[in-house]
């Protein structure tokens, strides 16, 4: 009488049971990290970007001229870029100002990268930015200048009806 | 073992408590409590007297089974009446139950 009911429930059980023996897809985050190849960059000459992850910014301090275009681009989006005075002698940066980014506001849209005409502000695959203190979220130009070390070692692979990280 | 009188007195006490409840209470649920207590008293007597027979009888137990079953019936019907009365009158004070017939 209720062939559909019984077969339906048994089918559900069978599928659930089969999945017990599948390889798990969990990325064991602190030990494994996702391998992200590159950050988002933008070529001002051709006016197109290159596909890449929009993470923490990288600032090439030697190329920055302190033009504030990134801060202007960000002004109405998240208002997270401040031009701050920096120490040292920067020949092409007459006012000695460089962007300082407040990651408590940043939304990682990357329009500041698009706005930079001197190819000195890009994005990196770094995303580990959590902090217990709000002040630690503000990254100074020199913090931004440090290129993050590559930590990623696994990728999400799908084949044969199984998805896993390897 | 105690003499039969002890069980008898316990049973009598329960009966009297039940009768007190029937007289003194106006809350329909409390009345139901009282009735249940009285039935319990009766069942205790059933079992006790059968047990204290010269050749112990099982009939007392059999009858208490019936009694328990009937008590369950009575409780079900009583509670249905109470719910019904509450719906009609918004009250379960038995003295106020004038229009149980709807």
């Amino acid at each position, binding site marked *: 009488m209720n062939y559909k009911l019984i077969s339906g*429930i048994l089918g559900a059980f069978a*599928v659930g049971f089969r999945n017990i023996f599948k390889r798990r897809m969990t990325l064991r985050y602190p030990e494994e990290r996702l391998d992200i190849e590159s950050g988002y960059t933008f070529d001002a000459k051709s006016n197109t970007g290159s596909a890449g992850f929009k993470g923490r910014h990288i600032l090439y301090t030697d190329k920055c001229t302190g033009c504030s275009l990134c801060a202007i681009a960000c*002004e109405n989006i998240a208002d997270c870029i401040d031009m701050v005075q920096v120490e040292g002698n920067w020949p092409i940066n007459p006012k000695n100002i460089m962007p300082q980014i407040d990651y408590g506001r940043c939304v990682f849209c990357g329009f500041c990268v698009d706005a930079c005409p001197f190819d000195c502000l890009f994005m990196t695959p770094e995303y580990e930015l959590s902090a217990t203190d709000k002040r630690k979220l503000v990254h100074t130009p020199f913090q931004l200048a440090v290129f993050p070390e590559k930590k990623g070692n696994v990728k999400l692979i*799908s084949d044969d009806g199984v998805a896993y990280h390897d | 073992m105690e003499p039969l009188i002890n069980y008898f007195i316990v049973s009598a006490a329960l009966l009297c408590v039940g009768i007190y409840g029937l007289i003194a209470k106006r809350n329909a649920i409390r009345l139901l409590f009282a009735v249940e207590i009285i039935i319990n008293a009766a069942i205790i007597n059933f079992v006790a007297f059968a047990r204290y027979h010269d050749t112990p009888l099982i009939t007392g137990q059999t009858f208490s089974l019936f009694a328990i079953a009937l008590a369950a019936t009575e409780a079900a019907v009583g509670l249905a009446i109470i719910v019904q009365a509450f719906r009609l009158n918004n009250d379960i004070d038995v003295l106020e139950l004038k229009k149980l017939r709807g």
Partner: protein
Amino acid sequence: MKNAGMNIEDKGGDQLVLHVGPQHPGSGHFRIIVTVDGDYIVGAKPDPGYVHRGAEKMAEYRDYIQNIPHLERPVIIDATGVTLPYVLTAEKIIDVEAPERAQYIRMIMAELNRIISHLYWLGIYGIFLGHSTMFMWPMGDRELFIDLAESIGGTRVTFSYVVPGGVRNDMPTNFKERALKTFDYFERRIEEYKKIFFNNPIMTARTESVGILSPADAIKLGITGSNLRAVGIDSDTRKDEPYCLYDRVDFEIPTRKEGDSYARCIVRLEELQQSMNIMKQVLDLIEPGPIKQVIGGVMRGEPGEAFVRTEAARGTMFYHIVSDGEKNPYRVKISVPSFRNLIGMTHLLVGSKLADMPAIYWSLDYWPVEADR
């Protein structure tokens, strides 16, 4: 009694007033005040606005580029679905047109986002019906599509990828083979989904002939998206008024006649397959070429107005932009599908059982953040 936003008023008799939400596992960022008579809902009054952030007003203070990250926040599950109509409208106002390759990439992103959004919906529907595996599986398989979208758009959900004049960057070179592999994987998974959830007798018992919407009511109330297709009307903006290059691809509009919760589920499941179908065709059609028409200086619209609708994951997304020639738009009116489906929810809830509320509520794919804007 008072437990954070959930409380019940006693109206006397058998009528109870239940406030479901906003801190209620079955509501999300939304509150609905239902009046219950015994087991049946006799009145439902939605109380949205818990995520109302004033997107329309704030859009008047930002220029056409700065508006993109801002306007995609209301529907970050379906970020391209919500920015694409905006960009198309802005393109009409600024009078630019994206090159062909950009149009194709936009289609890919839109369909990827549709899949991501539908899978999220499916996951939450699973948890609403108490099926925790059906929460986990779509959430996991959604990650594959998120990875695909991320390889183009750069972030997991909020891409800010489509801009007036084209798209911001090209696809990665190995995108096609990765995508096809993922589709192959996911098509197998859909069979498993069907076995564990869609053909599960308990699931069908919960959803079949629950919350039946008649075609006449659906038209009258302005229901849109998959909910409309579930009553048998094959209306889809991608076919009705093709934007991008949807007229070059061949796909079907899945419909169901019943109009109940189950029909809405099945329609969405079939839309997943159609989206993959569209993407496969697009990946064959796409040819190298420019991806962006360069606009010099600040974008300024012509004085005038434009309106565009597209088919987002939840239904027709509509933008109406009025420009007065300044760099900021004068008025942006967004009409989102969730907001229009809200009226359908009140219509469906009244007269149904209280226990069916989760099954009806989430089968409409109501995303409160989108409705509130």
